[in-house]
């Protein structure tokens, strides 16, 4: 299915261009995650230490670098967020993890000075306990195929020259100078590229539909409103390689005959907004965007707009309403945005990741792209692997990769709440966020692709993969998603607005012990009604988490309803704490800890809990040193 040769060809594209760039280089990851862990301090420290050691530091890319100079640069998100701040040294191929300011002097002396590896800063594989020197022997990276993400962790996102030296804007030039709009649409159609934002609609067909419209004014929009809680691949690309998004937008604009582009970025991503704005300004300064693109006489303008915090704006027509200054409420389709979109003009809206693929397809031809992944879902997909796994972060793999490979081999296996590997801890993976479904242990060998996931009641969605261990209550998870969609429902369709509220109330009944035999049937019936009776993707998919957990974890729902029991102990209302009369030594610690005075008992005699006074807070269980409080 996967052509290794094709992958190597794509990943390596453009790298030979800058042969002079063989200068030693220290790359510090400056994604949101690493910045939160103090990457900027590390960067400053490197600047000082390298200068103090007598070596030359260069911060900007220059052609005339000499071998005793060290280039210090920042990169976008390298995806291994949990282990940040990450520092890589190239061409040595060393990756240091969790680097602190105080480690910098050692790296400068040992690695840059003496060419030695600082062992203690290397990543240690939690299963084999082996130290990994760089990307090649690190299971998290070695098993991925990072096409879109590769440059995110290597290029300086704030340096347009570096992007161009690595072949950037070549595809856009080709699109404007050598190709006709028909040819571009045809190439993208042939590649089989499908929208990475969730729906999986063929990108080429979307473009073609807008291209054939007879209109003097058309628009292209980049959808960077990544609202799925638990997904952050678009954030990474916008922060790490903003020019690839602009290049994709330019090609899309050329393909449909638009001269205005707009990037709609989520307000919660301030760094992505900043980097996108800077990239647009740099591209304008270099004459790549402007009145005369590549000397063709064609104009191209690009603007960055910040969203205002509404999940529903990820839906195309709602996003258009939002850009027009309205409440972000969807409208019925047809007419499709490709026919009548922003200001009534033909408009295409593409996801960030989709656009980031476009330039590669043009550079290498559709066949190479098509040879990766599965016939129905070609190419790679980035998944945001989070939750109870050892290695959380961004994972890019070809479509068709089995779930097991991602969770166990790349993710390093399931962990308990304390972060330790839990061998048989796998319970489920939620894929596709609040619109998706859950995958169970039976699906571990399911190849992840659009069709295969749909067949089991889940979807690729934006690519959020949240792993959950055995300690997670599936009813509570369904409630969590339902609460989210209920809050984010725009209120236009009655079944979505009221239905999600009722579904949430029913789930509360299950969790709080008020449910009876009818509740589960009602959940099922109402869930299906909401799917049918809603206009946009939000409502149509809102019941998915409930229906999917009911399908695969029915017995857990039934336990809540009939036995009034939650096997994970997460549902507080269903707990019935009891003191084990054999274990209890009557020390009185629990009596002191109980805030409501529900525990009584003589000293050195087993104590009792009065269920009427007990508020099930768990303070007694925490206080008891011999674990005599059970059922909480």
């Amino acid at each position, binding site marked *: 299915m996967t052509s290794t040769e094709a992958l190597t060809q794509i990943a390596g594209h453009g790298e030979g261009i800058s042969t002079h760039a063989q200068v030693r280089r220290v790359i510090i990851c400056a994604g949101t995650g690493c910045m*939160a862990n103090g990457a900027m301090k590390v960067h400053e420290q490197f600047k000082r230490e390298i200068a103090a050691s007598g070596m030359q530091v260069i911060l900007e890319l220059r052609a005339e670098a000499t071998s005793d100079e060290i280039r210090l640069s920042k990169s976008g998100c390298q995806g291994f967020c949990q282990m940040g701040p990450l520092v890589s040294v190239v061409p040595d191929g060393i990756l240091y993890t969790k680097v602190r300011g105080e480690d910098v002097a050692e790296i400068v002396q040992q690695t840059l000075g003496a060419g030695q590896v600082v062992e203690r800063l290397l990543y240690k594989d939690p299963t084999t306990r082996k130290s990994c020197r760089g990307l090649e022997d690190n299971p998290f990276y070695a098993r991925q195929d990072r096409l879109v993400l590769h440059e995110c962790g290597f290029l300086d996102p704030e340096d347009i020259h570096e992007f161009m030296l690595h072949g950037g804007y070549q595809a856009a030039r080709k699109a404007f100078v050598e190709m006709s709009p028909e040819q571009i649409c045809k190439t993208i159609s042939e590649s089989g590229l499908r929208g990475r934002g969730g729906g999986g609609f063929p990108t080429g067909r979307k473009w073609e539909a807008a291209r054939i419209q007879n209109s003097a004014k058309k628009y292209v929009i980049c959808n960077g409103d990544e609202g799925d809680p638990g997904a952050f691949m678009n954030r990474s690309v916008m922060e790490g390689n903003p020019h690839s998004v602009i290049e994709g937008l330019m090609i899309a604009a050329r393909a449909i005959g638009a001269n205005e582009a707009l990037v709609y970025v989520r307000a919660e991503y301030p760094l992505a907004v900043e980097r996108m704005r800077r990239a647009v300004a740099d591209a304008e300064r270099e004459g790549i965007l402007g009145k005369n693109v590549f000397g063709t006489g064609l104009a191209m303008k690009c603007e960055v707009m910040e969203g*205002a915090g509404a999940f529903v704006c990820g839906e195309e027509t709602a996003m258009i309403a939002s850009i027009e200054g309205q409440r972000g409420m969807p409208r019925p389709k047809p007419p499709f945005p490709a026919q009548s979109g922003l200001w009534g003009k033909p408009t295409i809206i593409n996801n960030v990741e989709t656009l980031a693929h476009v330039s590669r397809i043009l550079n290498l031809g559709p066949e190479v792209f098509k040879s990766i992944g599965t016939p129905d879902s070609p190419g790679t997909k980035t998944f945001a692997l989070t939750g109870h796994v050892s290695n959380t972060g961004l994972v890019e793999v070809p479509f068709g990769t089995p779930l097991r490979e991602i969770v166990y081999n790349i993710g390093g296996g399931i962990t308990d709440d304390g972060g330790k590997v839990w061998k048989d801890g796998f319970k489920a993976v939620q894929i596709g966020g609040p619109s998706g479904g859950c995958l169970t242990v039976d699906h571990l060998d399911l190849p992840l692709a659009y069709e295969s996931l749909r067949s089991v009641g889940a979807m690729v969605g934006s690519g959020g993969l949240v792993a959950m261990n055995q300690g997670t209550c599936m009813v509570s998870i369904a409630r969590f998603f339902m609460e989210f969609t209920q809050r984010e429902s725009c209120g236009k369709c009655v079944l979505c607005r009221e239905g999600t509220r009722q579904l949430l109330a029913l789930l509360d009944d299950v969790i709080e012990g008020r449910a009876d035999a009818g509740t589960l049937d009602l959940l099922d019936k109402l869930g299906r009604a909401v799917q049918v009776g809603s206009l946009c993707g939000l409502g149509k998919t809102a019941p998915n988490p409930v229906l999917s957990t009911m399908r695969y974890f029915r017995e857990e729902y039934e336990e809540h309803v009939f036995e009034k029991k939650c096997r994970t102990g997460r549902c507080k209302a269903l707990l019935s704490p009891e003191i084990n009369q054999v274990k209890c030594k009557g020390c009185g610690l629990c009596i002191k800890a109980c805030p409501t005075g529900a525990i009584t008992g003589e000293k050195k005699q087993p104590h009792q809990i009065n269920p009427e006074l007990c508020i099930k807070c768990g303070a007694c269980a925490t206080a008891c040193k011999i674990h005599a409080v059970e059922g909480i």
Partner: protein
Amino acid sequence: MASMPIVVDRAEKFEKVVSILNHHGRRPSGLIPILQAIQHEYQYLPEEVLTYVATSLDVPPARVFGVATFYAHFALEPKGKHVIRICDGTACHVKQSIPVLNALHAKLGTSEKCKTTPDMLFTIETVACLGACGLAPVIVVDDQVYGQITPERAVALVDEIKAQEASTGNASQDAAEQLSAEECND
């Protein structure tokens, strides 16, 4: 909100709004960027400013209020000096973000309904996802992201800020007096 004392001088307030409106060309289509700029300036959207914007753009106030209330990013009430946002995205949620939220509410006496402390020092909010899922659970204190947070560390952060505020002898005392009438009534 009507009982809120107007901290900013009226004339000065509208001067800034006028310059924002001019910058955005006074087009109703630019309503969202306009409101974002205003909120950036005042930390929230004061009611009289919203009606002023409606008049300036020649749209009904209902349109402006409709937009301002639709999007989660817009606040119609003033926020505290320090805003603590707790991420409750899926990744943070399964890694126990709610105990962090509860610990902060307990520490500051705030709640789901009443998000700001009476002395206007802290506002506690939840957000759907900050995209820092690899560090879950995450909180953001005044735009500084803290990953892999525990209830204890979150409370310690609040203590640190409180200590800083006390040592700089800032105006929180005055703010508390000004706003003593604005108690939480949930």
